[in-house]
C-alpha cells in the first residue's frame, strides 16, 4: 500500500529529472555550433616526436588565430594515418619522412593522399657521436678513423664495441654498413626513440663514448653537442633501406638527405577551404626554427599551444608569407 503511494512521487521525480536533462541537452546543442564560419574544421595529425608537436601547434595557432578555423588534433601512428587520410578522417600531416611504400600505395595508386611539397626541413640520418670524443680521438670525424678503435665503444653487452641502432620505425642499414665497411661493431637494437635518447644521454652524462644511429632535425643535437661521423660518399644505386636485401656492398654509403613532406588527404586538398592554401605555403624557414619550438616543448616542458604562440608572435614575417600577405 505504502508501496504504491511512494511509487508515484518517485516516478514523478525521475520524470522531472529526465525532462530537466533533455531540456539541458537540447539547449547545449545549439550553443556549441557556432565556430569557424568560413574555414570549418581542419584535422591535423600530430605524431609522436616533439618536432611534429611543434609543427602541429604552430599550424593550429595560425589557422585558428588568423583564419578562424577550428583545428582538431589527432594522434594516429605514422603508418595507420595514411589509411585515415585515405578515408578523409585526417586532413593533413605536416611532416612525413619519405614513406616510399605508402607513396606507392596511397599517393600514386589510390590517389587518396596528395603530396604538397616540403615543410622546409631537410631530414638526414647518420652516425653521430658526442663532440667531446673528438678531443681525444680527432680521427673519429670519419668512419675510417673508427677502424681499429671499435673497442673504445665497449659496453657490457658488446665488449668489442657497441653501435646503438635506431627506432624500428625509421629506415636503417647499419648492420649492412658495419659489415661492408669492415668495422667490428656489435649492432645493438635499443628500441624506440625515447629509449634511444635515454640510453645515450645516460652515457653522455657520464662522458662515456657512444656511437649511434641518429638524425637531424632534432632539438637535442645542439643541446648534447652531437656531431656526425662522415660516411663514404653516395654512389649510384646505393641503397638505404636494409629491407631491400641484397649484397651488403650496395649499402656502403652515407644515408641520403631528403626534404620532409607535407601530405593532404585528397578530400581536404579539393575542399576549397582557405586553410588549404595556407598549409600549402606553410614551411619552416630552417631546421633551427623547428628545433627551437621543439626544445621549448620537450626540453623546457612548455605548453605546446603557448610555445606556438610565442614563436608566431616573434616570427610574424614568416607567418605573413604563409598567409599570403606581403
Amino acid at each position: 500500500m505504502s508501496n504504491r503511494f511512494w511509487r508515484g512521487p518517485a516516478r514523478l521525480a525521475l520524470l522531472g529529472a529526465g525532462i530537466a536533462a533533455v531540456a539541458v541537452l537540447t539547449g547545449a546543442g545549439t550553443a556549441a555550433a557556432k565556430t569557424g564560419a568560413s574555414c570549418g574544421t581542419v584535422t591535423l595529425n600530430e605524431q609522436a616526436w616533439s618536432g611534429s608537436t611543434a609543427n602541429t601547434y604552430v599550424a593550429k595557432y595560425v589557422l585558428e588565430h588568423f583564419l578562424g578555423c577550428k583545428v582538431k588534433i589527432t594522434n594516429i601512428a605514422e603508418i595507420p594515418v595514411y589509411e585515415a587520410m585515405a578515408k578523409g578522417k585526417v586532413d593533413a600531416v605536416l611532416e612525413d619522412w619519405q614513406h616510399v611504400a605508402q607513396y606507392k600505395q596511397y599517393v600514386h595508386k589510390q590517389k587518396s593522399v596528395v603530396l604538397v611539397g616540403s615543410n622546409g626541413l631537410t631530414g638526414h640520418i647518420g652516425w653521430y657521436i658526442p663532440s667531446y670524443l673528438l678531443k681525444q680521438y680527432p680521427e673519429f670525424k670519419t668512419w675510417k678513423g673508427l677502424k681499429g678503435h671499435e673497442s673504445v665503444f665497449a659496453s657490457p653487452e658488446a665488449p668489442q664495441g657497441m653501435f646503438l641502432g635506431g627506432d624500428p620505425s625509421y629506415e636503417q642499414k647499419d648492420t649492412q654498413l658495419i659489415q661492408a665497411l669492415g668495422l667490428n661493431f656489435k649492432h645493438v637494437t635499443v628500441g624506440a626513440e625515447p629509449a634511444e635518447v635515454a640510453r645515450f644521454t645516460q652515457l653522455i652524462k657520464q662522458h662515456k663514448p657512444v656511437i649511434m644511429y641518429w638524425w637531424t632535425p632534432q632539438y637535442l643535437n645542439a643541446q648534447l653537442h652531437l656531431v656526425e661521423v662522415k660516411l663514404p660518399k653516395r654512389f649510384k644505386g646505393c641503397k638505404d633501406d636494409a629491407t631491400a636485401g641484397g649484397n651488403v656492398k650496395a649499402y656502403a654509403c652515407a644515408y641520403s638527405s631528403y626534404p620532409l613532406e607535407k601530405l593532404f588527404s585528397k578530400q581536404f586538398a579539393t575542399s576549397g577551404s582557405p586553410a588549404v592554401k595556407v598549409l600549402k605555403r606553410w614551411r619552416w624557414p630552417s631546421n633551427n626554427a623547428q628545433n627551437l619550438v621543439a626544445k621549448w616543448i620537450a626540453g623546457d616542458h612548455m605548453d605546446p599551444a603557448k610555445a606556438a604562440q610565442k614563436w608566431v608572435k616573434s616570427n610574424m614575417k614568416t607567418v605573413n608569407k604563409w598567409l599570403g600577405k606581403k
Partner: protein
Amino acid sequence: MAVAHGQMVDAPALAVLEHRPWWRSRLTLFTAIVGAMVVCYFALSHTLSWPAALEWTSLTGYLDRFQAWLSNQGDAATPNVFVRVLNGISSGLNTLVTWLYDAFTRLRWPGTTALGTLIALRFGGVRAGAIMLAGFASFGAVGLWDESMQTFALMLAAVGLSLAVGMPLGVIAGRSTRFNRAITPVLDAMQIVPAFAYLMPVVILFSVGPGAAVITTMIYAIPPAIRITALGIRGVPPNTVEAAASMGSTSMQMLGKVQLPLARRLLLLSVNQTILFALSMVVIAGLIGGGGLGSAVTNGLYSNPALAVLAGAAIVVMAIALDRVTEAIADRTDPAQRHADAAGWLRTRTATAAAAAGVGLATGLAYAFGAGAIYSRWTARDWLLHYVQNALDYMANPGTFLFRDITNPLGVFLVVHVLQPLDAFLAEPPWFVTFAGLVAIAFVLSGLRRAVTTALMFAVIGVVGEWQPAMHTFSQVLVATAIAVALGLVLGVWAAESRTVSRITRPVNDVLQTLPQLVYVVPFVYLFPISYIPGLLASVLYAFPVVVRLVERGVSDVAPHAVEAAKACGATRAQILLKVKIPLARDAIMLGVNQGIIMVLAVVVIAGLVGSGALGYEVAQGLQRNEFGFGVVASLAILALGIALDRVTQGNQRSQRESERG
C-alpha cells in the same frame, strides 16, 4: 588477474606423491638433458642456424600482397557487401562512443561526476560511491578531465561489448566441451599475438577512430570473458545439474535458474578481468585514433614524460574504480539477499529516484553556474608534474647512489652472467641440438602429446625463418618467467597466510596490471642502461601479479579439513604450509606459472621497443614501417613460442594428476 586456461582445482584429492627411482625422476632426466645440451654447446662451437632450405620465405610477400588487396577493396568506387558491412560496424561503434562522450559533455563535469557517483552509490553502496567520486576527483586533479572522459567512453563501450560477446560464448563453451576445445587456440592467439601485428588490418577494415579502437580492445578483452565464464559454468557441481535435469528442467531453465546463478562468483571475476584487460589496451587504442589518455601517454613519452606518468595514473585509477564498483554492485545483487519485502522495495525505489534527481540537480546547477563540459579549474597538475619530473630526473641522473651502486651493477650482472650465457646456450649451438633438447625436455615434463606439439611449434618457428630471433626472445622469456614465478610464489603464499600482505598486494597487482608499461619502461632505460634489462623488468612487473593472485587463491582455498587434520596431528605452521597447503594447491600454482608465461609473452613487443630486440622489435618494425608480412611472421613465432610453453606447463598438471590416479 587472468584466469585464462583452465581447469579449476576440483576439491583436491589428497596428493599422493609418486615414487620413482631417483634416476628416473623428472629432475634427474631434466638435468641430464640440459647437461647433454651444455656438452654439445661446448663441443660444437660453430653456429648452425635453421637451414634456409627449410624456410618458407615467400610467406611475407603473400601477406603483404593480401594487405594491399584489402586496402584497395576499401578504396574501390563501389564497395562490395563485405566492405559495406564493415563500414557499418565501424560507424556504428564510432556513433556509440561519440554518443557516450557527447553525453558526458552535455551533462557538464558536475553532472557526469554525479551520474557516475550516484550510480555507484545506488547499486554498490557508500563505499563504491566514494571510490567513484574519488576517481572523478583525481581525473580533475591531474588536469586530464577531457582525456579521461574520452577514454571512459571508449572503455564503457569496449567492456560492454566484450561482455556481450564473450559471456554468451563462454556459456556455450562451458556447456560444450567440443566448442571449448575448438575455441581455445583462437583465444590463445587473441591473447598472445601482439596488437601491433593486427593494428594495420584493423585500420584497413575499420578505418581509424574510436570504432577501430573499440575493436582492437575487444580482441584482447574478450578471451578472459569467455574463459572465466566457461570456467564458472563448468564449475557448477554436476549433482546439482543432474538434480535439476531429473526434475524436468528445460535447457534454458537449467541455464537461467541453475548454472548461471551458481556460477555467479566467477561471472563477476570475468567482468572484473574484462575491465582490467580492456584498460591495459588504452595506449594501443590511442595509436589508431582512440585518443584520450592513451595519446597522452604516447605523446608524453617524447615531449613530457611526467605528463605520461599522470595519464598512466589516471588509467590505473579508472581501472581500479571500475573494478571495485562492479565488485560492490555484484556483491549487493547476490540472489541470497534479493528477497526483499515491501519496505525494501520502497527504499530502493526512493534511492533510485533520489539518485536520478541528484544527477538532474547537479547538471542543472552546472548550467546555472556556467560550469564547463571539461573540468579545468584548480588542478594540482603543475604541482604534480613538478614532483613527478623531479623523481624522473633523479632516476635519469647517473650520479646518484641508486644508479651507481644498485641498478647499474645489478643490470650489468644480470646481462653478463645470466642473460647472455643463456642466450648463447640457446641460440649458438647447431639448431638441431637446441631443437632436440627442448623437445626432449617437453617429453620428460609432460608426456608424448605435449612433446609433439612442442616439436611442431619449434618447427613452425624455423619454417617462418625466425629461429635465431626466437631463441633470443626465448631466453629472455625464460629468465623473466623464472623471476616472475619466484616472486609470485613467495608473495602469493605470504598473502594467503597474512591478511595484511594480501591487503597490500591487491592494489599493487591492480596497478601493475593496468599501468601502461610505456610509462615506466623509459625510466627503466635510464636506471638500467643495458639492452635487455628494461624489457625484462617490464615483463616481470606485468606477469608476477597474476602468479600472486592465482597462488594466493590456490593456497587459501585449500580444503579446511586437511589443514585441521594436520593441526590435530600437531604440525607446526611451517609444516602445514610446506607439507599440506602448497602440495594441495599445486594445480593452482601450476596455472599461475602458465599464466605468468602468457603475460610475459604479452610484453615482448614493449620489451622490443626498449632494447630487448629480437621478435618484439620485428613486430614493431612490421607495424611502423608497413612491413605487414614481416610483423605477422614475427608474431607467428611469438605465438608458437607461447603455445609450446603453455602446453608444456599445462601438460605438467595433467600428467601429474594422471599419475596420481594411476
